[in-house]
Each structure stands twice: as C-alpha cells, then as structure tokens.
C-alpha cells in the first residue's frame, strides 16, 4: 500500500515539520516524553497508538494549543515553540467537527479568510466555493451546519481548515464519530484531497488499520514516545518491538533461548519445542534470548516445519476468513482460516515467515 506516493524517486523532499526532544508534563503525568519526529513536505504522516499514548497531545503541541515543557517544534526549520496557534499556518480538524453552530456552512469555511487573504488572489466567495467543491459539497454555502449529517459536517470542517491555505493539515481522529462504512469512504476522499493539494498532513488515529491504509509513514506511539516510525509495510512486516507487533494487526509473539545457530537460521527453544527461525540481518549466538513474531496468515494448518500441536479455544467467523484462537502449551495463538475450526489443529510456519524483533544477551 501507498508508500511510493511521496516523490516518485529522486531526492527526498525537505522537512516540513520537526519535533526535537519534545516533552509535555502535566501536574502528575508525562503526556509526551522526549519525542523526536520529522515530517516531510507533502507527506501523509500518521500517529497511531492506544488511548493515553500522547498522540493527541503531540498534535496539540504541533498546532500550538499546548506549549512543550521541553524541546522545540519547527516548521520549515523555524522554531515556532512560542508562536500562538493563530500565527502557525496550520489547519486543524477535530473528531467532533467543531463547526461554529451560529454560522452557516459558507461562513464557517470562510472564517479563516478574515485573517488571511485567499490564496491564489481569488475572492473570498470564490475560495469558499472552490473548497466546498473540493469536498463534494458544492452549493452548500447557505446551509445550517447543525442540519448536516456527520460525514457532511466533517467535510465542511476539512474545507474550513484548508480554506486559508495552511502549510500543515492536522487531523485529530476525524473519522471516529462516523460509522464504519462512511469512515472508509471518507478515508479514501481525505487521501485523494491530500494528494491533490500535496499538503503536509499529520493524522491522529487509534485505528491501526486506518493508519496502514491511509499513510505514507506511520509512527506507532506508546507512553508518550514513538516505538517505531516507518512505512505501513515496514510497520506491518518488520515491527521493531513486541508492542508494535501486537498493536498493529493480530500477531503471535514467541520468545526463547537460542540453542544452535546456522548460516541463516537459528534453533530456538520455545515451550519444549525447538523452532527454526530465519535470523537474516541479526547477529545471533547460542544462549541469546530471541523474541520473534509470526503473523496469523503465516501460521499454516498442517504445515510440517515448526509444527505445533494446538487445541482450538474459540473461533470467530468474519466472512472472508475466520479468526481462530488456539491454545498451545499455555500460550494463546491466533490463526486465520477460511472456515471456523474445532478440536485439535497442527499449525506450522516457514522459518523465513518469522520476524525477529529482539535479540537479548
């Protein structure tokens, strides 16, 4: 999925937005802890993580609604840590739309043009019409925002944020209040608009699937700092930590002691079995403690390598596939099968389908 969309090769675009060693402390909690990130010009960058991981605070620090306790926030290399939000050239879209209820749709979209001339030297009315057209709401100027559907409101909010021509678009869980179908539809639309305008975008979500689907790059946040930053494929296929491995999609994480080391494969003792794990790119010696993961789709039924005898504990029928939970020597495993399963199942995986997360001495 779309990791190629930024430049199409050649040199990397310049950094649009940078956080360096940023911390935000509240009275009792540390919301953001020594966080460093950089987002490139035109990039769609997503912060994903469980609630309380500091992703919203990070967005608020970028927007200027909060000032960092330590560290600096830079826009195109200029320190904006002390700049109030109105002077930052950001567009913000909130989960609850935050449309001004006492203004019409047109007045909402045009509000930011009170403080900046419409980009491109067009008239205010023209700019508002353009933006409404962009979000498929042409002719909605006189409507009352209170009378729109959730999806329409959110598109008005996006148009409003874009109207003054911000350098950076910040979206704080913009889809969470919408139902699943609408969410996927709007997701595609947001991505299309972002590409059309080429605007640097920071997107916040707790939904890892959404993060993978929409982003150029993803930062998985935990306890106020990113655990891993990478393209969606990197995040999914090569998780850097056990947390990332299990947070993004289903996963089976194993750890055990290395018995023997081959050229590309190590033998690892896990729960009384010896499993063969590909270790390309890692220096492994006997006696190391190895943590690795195998995605459910790579745990194949009736495979002969690394075969594990398991018992089905439960199964969920999801339509296209079924998610089957297995018990193996006191551990829980999860696999994907076409049909729900019962009873005893033997599963196994190819050594190269295992991804090594960590090697401990």
């Amino acid at each position, binding site marked *: 999925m779309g990791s190629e969309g930024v430049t199409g090769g050649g040199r990397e675009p310049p950094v*649009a937005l940078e956080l360096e060693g940023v911390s935000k402390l509240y009275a009792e909690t540390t919301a953001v802890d020594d966080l460093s990130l950089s987002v490139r*010009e*035109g990039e769609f960058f997503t912060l994903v993580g469980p609630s309380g991981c500091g992703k919203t605070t990070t967005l*608020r620090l970028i*927007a*200027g*609604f*909060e*000032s960092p306790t330590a560290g600096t926030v830079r*826009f195109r290399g*200029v*320190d*904006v840590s*002390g*700049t*109030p*939000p*109105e*002077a*930052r*050239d*950001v*567009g*913000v879209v*909130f989960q*609850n739309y*935050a449309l*001004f*209820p*006492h203004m019409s749709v047109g007045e909402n979209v045009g*509000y*930011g043009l*009170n*403080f*900046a*001339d*419409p*980009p*491109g*030297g067009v008239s205010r009315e023209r700019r508002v019409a*353009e*933006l409404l057209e*962009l979000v498929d709401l042409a002719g909605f100027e006189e409507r009352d925002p209170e009378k729109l559907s959730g999806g329409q409101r959110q598109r008005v*909010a996006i148009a*409003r*944020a*874009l*109207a*003054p*021509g*911000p*350098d950076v678009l*910040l979206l704080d869980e913009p889809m969470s209040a919408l139902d699943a179908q609408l969410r996927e539809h709007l997701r595609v639309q947001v991505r299309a608009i972002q590409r*059309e*305008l*080429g*605007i*640097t975008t920071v997107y916040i979500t707790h939904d890892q699937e959404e993060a993978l689907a929409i982003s150029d790059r993803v930062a998985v946040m935990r306890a106020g700092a990113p655990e891993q930053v990478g393209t969606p494929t990197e995040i999914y296929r090569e998780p850097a930590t056990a947390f990332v491995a299990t947070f993004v999609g289903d996963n089976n994480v194993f750890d055990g002691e290395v018995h023997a080391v081959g050229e590309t494969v190590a033998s690892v003792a896990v729960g009384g079995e010896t499993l063969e794990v590909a270790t390309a790119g890692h220096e492994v010696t006997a006696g190391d403690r190895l943590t690795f993961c195998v995605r459910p789709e790579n745990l194949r039924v009736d495979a002969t390598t690394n075969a594990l005898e398991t018992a089905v504990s439960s199964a969920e029928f999801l339509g296209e596939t079924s998610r089957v939970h297995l018990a193996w020597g006191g551990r829980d495993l999860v696999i994907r099968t076409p049909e729900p399963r019962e009873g005893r199942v033997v599963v196994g995986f190819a050594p190269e389908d295992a991804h090594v997360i960590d090697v401990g001495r």
Partner: protein
Amino acid sequence: MPTGRDASHERELLAEASTRSVESGEMSRPVGSQREGVKGNAGDATANGRARRVRDGLERRLLGLSAVGTALILLVLFYYPVWTVFRESVVVDGTATLSVFLDLLRDPFYFGDLARVFAGESPLAVGREFLFGERRLGIVGFTAYQAALSTLLSVALGLPAAYVLARYEFYGRRTLRSLTILPFVLPSIMVAVGFAATFGRTGTLNGALGVVGLGPVDLMFTLEVVLLAHAFYNAPLVARVTVAAWESVDASAVETARSLGASPFRAFRDVIAPQLYPAVLMGAALTFIFTFGTFPIVLALGGFQLATVEVFVYQLVRDLNYAEAAALAIVELVITLGVLYAYLRYEARHAVRSSGARPLPRKRLVPTTRSVRDLLPRAGIAGYAVIAVFVFVAPIVSMVYASVAGPNGPTLAHYEFLVERQATGAAFQVQPWPAIRNSILFAVGALAISLPMGVAISVLTTRRYRGRKLVDVVAMAPLAVSGIIVGIGLLRGPVFGFEIGSYRLAVGGALAIVAAHAVSCYPFVVRTVAPGLERTDQSLLESARALGASRTRALLDVELPLIWPGVVAGAAFAFAISMGEFSSTIVLATGTDQYTMPIAIERFIGRRLGPATAMGVVLLVVTSVSFVVIDRLGGESYGI
C-alpha cells in the same frame, strides 16, 4: 446564586495567549506548498501584513488589558476601601492590636453567654447555665438563630414547590419555574414594604382575618414577619436548585431500581433522594449565608429590637465607631465564609453529576382517577398552594393594593402625594423624580462597568492555569463582604480622596455609588456568563485560533455569540440588582439629590406607608420593565 460555582469538568486550556509576543517568529501566512489549482501564492500580503500585525498586537493584548483594568477597578473600588475600614479594627492609635476584637468577643452584648467562654469561664459551666438557666444569645447569636430558623422555613416552603415543579405537568409550569428567579432580583426594601402592607396592623392579613371574625394580629416588628420575608427570598432559591437536581435524575436509574425489586418509596429513597441532598444543602447553605447578612428587611420589618449583626454594623457606622463596626463586620465575614467553606468541602465530596439523559416523566396535576393514591398528594399540594399564595404573592399584590387603597375606597392620593412632594417639597425632603432618575442612571452606569468586568473575569476564571482558584476567590470576594463596609470604605477612601503628590484625586459621591453598585453587580454577570464559557466546546475555540483568530477575536466571534443569552441575562441581573441596591447606597448617598428609589422608600416607610407603597410600585414597574427590555434586546430567552 452568587456562590458555589460549578467546578465543572476540566479542560486542557491554553494559558498563554495574552503573554505571548507577536514578534516571536511570525510566519508568512498564505504562501502555500500546494502544487496546483486551488491555491497559489499571494505576494501582496506583505503590505497588509504590517497593518494586520499592529491590529493583531492590540487585539492580542485586549484581554490582558481588560484583565488589568478589572483588577485595577477591584483594587481601587473594593479592596483598598475595604482594607481602610478593616485596618481600623486592628490599628488603634498607630499600633497594631487585637484588643478591639478581644473586647468584642468578650462582650455579652454581641456574643451572649459565649462571650463568657471567650472571657475565660469554664465552657461546661456556661453550657449548663445556657441549657437550664437564663440564656443570652447576644447580637451574633441572635443573628445565627434567626438565620437558622429562616433556613428551616425556606427549606420547608421550598421543597414542596420543588416537588410540584419537578414531578407535575400543568399549564404555566415553565413560567412558574422561571418566576422562581424573580424574588432574587426584587429590591429587598420593596419586599419589606410589601410585607408591611400584608402583615401590618391594617394589612391584608388582618383584613382577611377580620372577614372571618378573628381579631387583628400585629406581626410588624416581630421575628415571624422577618422569617417570612426571608422565606420569600430564599424558598424559591431552594426550590430552584432542587428542581434542577431533580430534573437531572436519570429515569433509567429509577427504572433499574424498580426492576431490581425496589418499591416506589425505596427507589425514591435510594436513587432520587441521594441526588437531591447536595442541592437541598446548597440551597440551605446559601440561605443561611444570605440571611446571616440580612439588612434592609430587618431594618424595615424588625427594627432595632431585632437587630442583626449587619444592622448593628450600620448603627456603629452611623455612630462613627468605625473600629468596632469593622471588627464586627470581620466577625460576620469569618462566620459567613466558614459556612461557605464547609459547604464547598461537602460539595466537593458529594457532588453527584447525573447525566440526566432521560429525565423522569411528569405526572398530570389534574388527577386522572379518584383513588386515594392520586388524590392525597394533590390535596397536599392544594394546601401548600394557599400558604404559598400568602407568602409569595400577597406581599406584592398587597403593596400594589395598598398604594391605591384609601379609607373610603380606591384613591390615587398616595401617588398625588408623590407628585406634590416633587412640586413643592423642600430641599431636605425626599423627592420622587430625582430618586427615579438616579436609580436608572446609576443602574446604567453600573451595567456599563460590570458587564465588561464580568465577562473579563469569566474568561479568566474558566481558563486553566496555576493560581486560577486564587483569581476566582479574589474576584468573588465582593459577594461576601458587607455592603455597608464597602460603602463606608468608598466614602472614606475614593470619595474623600487620595493624595497624589499635592493633588487630591476624589471620586464624586454619585460616581462612588455607581462604583459600589458595579462591584455588587458584576458577580452576577460572572454567574451567568462563566458557566456558558465553561460549557463551550473547547475545540470551537481552538478551531478559530488555528484558522488565524487571536484569543480576543475567538471570544468575540465564537464564544460570546454562542453564550449571548447568558450575557443578556447577566446584564438584566446587573441592572435589577443595581436598581434595588440598598446597603452601600444608604451609606454613600449623602444628600437627597443622590437618593435612589430604595432609599426613598426607606425614608417613607417609617412615617407614611401609603407613599412608600406607591414608591414601591414605581420601583417594581421600573425594575420589571428594564428586566424585560434588556431581555428582549437580547432577542432570546435566558436559560438560568
């Protein structure tokens, strides 16, 4: 209600705007990174940029400036004057001493038998004598005693009203519910006139009793009439807060209890009642605080034999005994704040915030069946209604009636007296027209000052930052301090004048009255504006900021339009409170040309009840009309 501001849900607020400098890294605004179509660049922005920057700078500082202005006004018109009075009680002949206080505490005149304990006698012995022998309450004790009785009476009269308003549906229920705010803004001196017209020797009550052949009773200058007048003010307050709590009870919680096996009574006791207690206690605490500091009602209806602390403070001020007056006022303040603090502690621990997603359904007031279960409560309500009419309606009606009643049928003699007094009265006599004119002028002035002050304080106290609690307390203190002390402080401070070098800066008497009114009005603006600001979705404000609006612009464009009904209500309150203000005006109004309507009524009430009622009607009309006009100007109904 002036106290007990909801410490509602916490929000992450930006606490920087006004202190930030514009110069720090302003970025060129409309130059975009976009590649095509929708936007290009706007090169002509630089020329506008500078002008805009200057304007932005002013705007950004506007909130800060108004905060500083408000602080200055409070300092000059409240804290400094009050301090000059309080200082009298601790500085005698240039040396700091607590002797004034100690004398006060040991004086049985003020503290009754408690004074003997303060003087060193054994508390046990004093307690035994107090219980079984002669008891002496003293002024302070009596004030607390009447406040406690007033509180009981107000709760007793307020709860049935709350029950009816919360649980029954009938024609005019909403109007009646809104009317419970009315007593709060009625000038107390006018209410006193109404009570004199109802319960006096020739009042309505005796008229009614005479018809059924019962002898005349004279309730004037008795504790009973004072308590009734206090209930007139505070029972609606108790009812109001209780109804609000009752309406926020979620019906599904009650239904859950019933489905788990609770009888209707158990469901009430276990689910509804616990959510009502905090509200009832809040009403009771506020009633105690208000009635502890009562002044015009006791002055007009009780006389000096029923003197409360505040009346005595006034008496001492008139005797120019400022030291003792200030010490007594401080004692009063300490007791009031003590009760308030105890209540707030309780509230913090027991606040039940029900979501009230689905309020309890109301029953029809007209019985649908003739069963005992349907008829009995409604018979009780009918009985209560008779009492309520006498306590809440009769005083106003009687006042209007008395103003046109003569010995030989209806007459306009009392109004003619006012007109005649206007035409021929001597300079030292109270003339009606200047009183009306002054009342309106002072109220307009007080409104002009207190509205911006109240909005500024609301903004300051609804943002989150270190020291917010302190700002809250400093801004709300004027509600707790005796109006007489504020008045005398203003009289001796700004009115007498400040020495600045060789120049004497003095504030005219009328200006001082406006100032005193503004100080007593703005807390009501805060009360109506701040909750709205607190409830306003923070992301609306943040959206406006992100779109380029300064903090001030966001306030003007987004927040104030959304809470406009609250602002209008605050203005209406401020106007009405100023119209009826008595305590500080009576101290500050030095000549007849500075009299307001309440002062004129007080001057009339002792000698001529007729003209007093006529004047009271004029005050009632002017207050009601301005209340309605301000409300209409706002274009929307207020939702207090």
